[in-house]
């Protein structure tokens, strides 16, 4: 049975960014329905759909909303559009090709959580998405979808602002995002209190990813039961926007039910359509850089919320696959990864701040041809000293750094040992020194 696109259904429709086209194709039907259903019913529906956050951690969205204190007076909704995970661009597709779907999702979430202001925290590099979203927001305001008494409902008023980030990876972490939104340095906060209790400006706050909010629209429109039947229930329900990049024939963003295998994503005719010019796969980062590496023997890994863990990965992540072919020098991969995480470390927790930089220095040395075999063990040891999962850091940045680094060294150890035995540096690295 061919999968009928849900999140990407408007992507190829001409003029999909306009409110009229969106409406013609059934848009803004869900918010009207939600207003009729009432807050509790909508919340219940989202819970039943078992929608899990698409931002990387996979926390159930309905449960997240239920953490808000019942006697709150002010609630904020923060939309995490700071999509900065390397290899990931599905939020960008949504915002550039179907901005009204996101706005409708914001409306439903805002209505359900009684939010009065929604902030879209947009990655600053997304200039095009900013223009498109801004225009869509103006259209929505003109149609009384935002502002006072939305769609004539005296019980629902909400404003929406787009706040552009300043180019920090760590501001994609929800409390880093909130700090940055408040105009402060984007240092993730210590928890508790969680944002649901004291978030933006000290008030109860919901932070949801763009794709998560987009999923709320079809859930209300077509029902939780329908949504929960897609994918691999009960843990992984619903459709997912996968992205694939690297030397595949057709890199891009494709929709499929949760549970697509990495092999299908790379080779499927609806997806990547295989490698370019007979190139051979060396390694795949299946879900955004932070989840870690798969070898070419592990391509049957299913991209859902459970399977990646069996391959030693952090999780599903953002389902943005990066394919690396055999012509690539893995030492450069190691160095690039280490550089990314070291320069993006916010500088707050010692292990992450110093550890990532140390690894980068070692990786650069390995790439320049003066690596030692013990460096591989040293990198592995340093990765074990940091991370939120072991309680050693405040946020998940260090975990995001350790998984690609340690899986790369563990799964491709022989390659690294050969590189080091040959002691021939990467030409570009030596030239840059």
């Amino acid at each position, binding site marked *: 049975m061919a999968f009928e696109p849900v999140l990407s259904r408007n992507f190829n429709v001409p003029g999909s960014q306009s409110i009229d086209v969106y409406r013609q194709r059934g848009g803004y039907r869900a918010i009207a329905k939600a207003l009729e259903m009432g807050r509790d019913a909508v919340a219940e529906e989202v819970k039943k759909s078992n929608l899990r956050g698409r931002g990387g951690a996979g926390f159930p969205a309905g449960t997240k909303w239920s953490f808000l204190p019942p006697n709150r007076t002010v609630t904020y909704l923060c939309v995490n559009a700071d999509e900065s995970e390397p290899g990931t661009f599905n939020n960008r597709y949504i915002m550039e090709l179907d901005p009204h779907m996101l706005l409708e999702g914001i409306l439903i979430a805002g209505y359900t959580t009684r939010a009065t202001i929604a902030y879209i925290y947009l990655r600053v590099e997304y200039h095009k998405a900013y223009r498109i979203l801004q225009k869509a927001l103006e259209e929505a305001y003109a149609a009384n979808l935002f502002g006072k008494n939305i769609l004539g409902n005296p019980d629902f008023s909400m404003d929406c602002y787009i706040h552009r980030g300043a180019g920090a990876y760590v501001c994609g972490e929800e409390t880093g995002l909130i700090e940055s939104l408040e105009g402060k340095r984007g240092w993730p906060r210590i928890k508790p209190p969680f944002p649901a209790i004291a978030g933006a400006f000290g008030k109860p706050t919901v932070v949801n990813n763009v794709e998560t909010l987009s999923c709320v629209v079809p859930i209300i429109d077509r029902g939780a039961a329908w949504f929960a039947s897609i994918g691999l229930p009960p843990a992984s329900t619903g459709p997912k926007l996968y992205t694939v990049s690297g030397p595949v024939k057709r890199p891009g963003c494709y929709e499929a039910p949760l549970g697509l295998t990495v092999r299908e994503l790379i080779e499927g005719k609806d997806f990547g359509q295989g490698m370019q010019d007979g190139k051979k796969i060396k390694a795949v980062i299946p879900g955004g850089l932070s989840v870690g590496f798969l070898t070419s023997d592990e391509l049957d890994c299913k991209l859902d919320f459970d399977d990646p863990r069996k391959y030693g990965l952090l999780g599903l992540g953002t389902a943005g696959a990066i394919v690396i072919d055999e012509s690539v020098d893995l030492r450069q991969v190691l160095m690039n990864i280490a550089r990314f995480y070291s320069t993006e470390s916010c500088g707050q927790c010692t292990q992450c701040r110093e550890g*990532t930089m140390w690894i980068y220095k070692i990786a650069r040395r390995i790439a320049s041809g003066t690596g030692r075999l013990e460096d591989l063990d040293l990198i592995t040891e340093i990765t074990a000293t940091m991370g939120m999962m072991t309680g050693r850091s405040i946020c998940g940045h260090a975990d995001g750094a350790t998984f690609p680094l340690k899986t790369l060294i563990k799964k491709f150890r022989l390659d690294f040992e050969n590189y080091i035995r040959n002691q021939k540096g990467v030409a570009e690295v030596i030239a840059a020194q």
Partner: protein
Amino acid sequence: MAMIIINGRAVECAEGTPVLKVAVDAGFDVPFYCFHPGLKIVASCRLCLMEMRSKDPKTGEMVWSPRLIPSCQTPARDGMEVRFDSPNVRQNQRAVMEDYLLNHPLDCPVCDQAGECWLQDYSMKYGNALSRMTEPKTVNPKKSVGSKTLLYQDRCVLCSRCVRFCREVAGTNELCVIRRSSYAEIDAFPGIPLENKLQGNVVDICPVGALLDKDFLYKQRVWYLKTSKSICPNCSTGCTICIDHNNGRVWRLRPRTNRKVNTWWICDEGRFGWKYVHSNQRLLAPMLKGARVTWDAALAAAQQLLAPAGKAQQGKGVAVVLSPMMACEEAWLLAKVVRAAAPQATLVTGFVPKASADELFPVGLTDQAKAKFIIRAEKCPNRCGVEAVCKALGGPQATFADFLAKAKQGTFALAWIVGGYSQEWVTRDCSDALSKVSQLIVQDIFPSSLSARADLALPSCAWVEREGTFVNHAGIAQPFDRALPPPVGCQQDSQYLYRLAGMEGLYRAEKVREQMLDKVAELRDLWTPPAEARGMH
């Protein structure tokens, strides 16, 4: 109260206190940098991590958490069980210490902090002898962040205490963290240097040698310094301080933690307000009618001046001006000496220097109860104490203004006037009024127009050279110790007053205090702040 178990030992504490504080107060060895009892908790140094015992949701058994937990961020709850001595915790401490030293320049031999540096101490206890990093170190810059403070970023551990201090206590927000990762640095916002009136505290709370006091820079190795407990005399707050001195000189002042008065801080006015002590302008010998005399001659002269004046009308023509810079014991002794000769002598509380208003911190605050620190407008330490002494002694009394007014009318034949201020204090008004007093005995630190025309001028000592008790604006009586001997040629004020009072031996504030207890209620409850555990001050 709550009972928690740390490393197998039961410790009693107030419910909700950070576990780190409970552990350190109870004497457990727990390393940490970012926690400070006076600042918000950020849990970013990750050095105080511990293990906690909790119920396994699956089996219901009590098990040690596999995850480490920051003890600073965890409030103590009754029945809690934690440990800091497991291999996992130790491994983390070692790893973090290794991280701290990766890019540290290891320039202890030229670092002011050496000897009181937490990085040195923790390295000895928890660190490794050798660094495994073979690559070049990241070198962060050195810079001046204000007219009084230097920042050596290469030594910084980024605990952010200084940033939080400027934000939460001073309320002036000058400092911030710029850049990311290993290149992150502390910096002052462009155009807003670190110039607030409490800025010296950032140097104190810096656990390493990153923030340095320009005034103290390269002056002394800290292990040569001797420390005396004192009280700051610069305003009526009465902050408890440590005087660090060596070779007969004061080198720096530091706050001494005092939950009742100044908590952890002092202001720059107090911190740098000791320079006059070593001024070469000081009055160093007794002067009889402008001529230098021996102490014996001077004291005999004092008695000769007092006796006839005291005889006339039971000494109604005698006044003694007790400076609010004096300690209670000194005021008591002098009043006693004068009253012994002239029973009806008028007791006057001396000139009280005042600024326009109290300064509250964080700046902008108007509610005194919410202030984290107050620099009082009253620029003397012991007005309350001197007033209490006068009240206790009874008899004729006058305020300083009344005294001047009466003096102008020629009421007084003899006045004994005590100064002791760090600055020139004799106004035109004052010297005009006193020109009508026929005989003057002046006791002061610096020569003035008054001491020049005095029949007898006696040198006074600065507070670092004296001991006694100050009663602050709120009536809290705090004793202070002597840090330095008086300058050559001088005697401690109370020592010569002691002799004039006919008492034998060396002056001890305690001995005088004992005599005063019945009369001066303010001195019955002396407040000496308890010593705090390392790092909690």
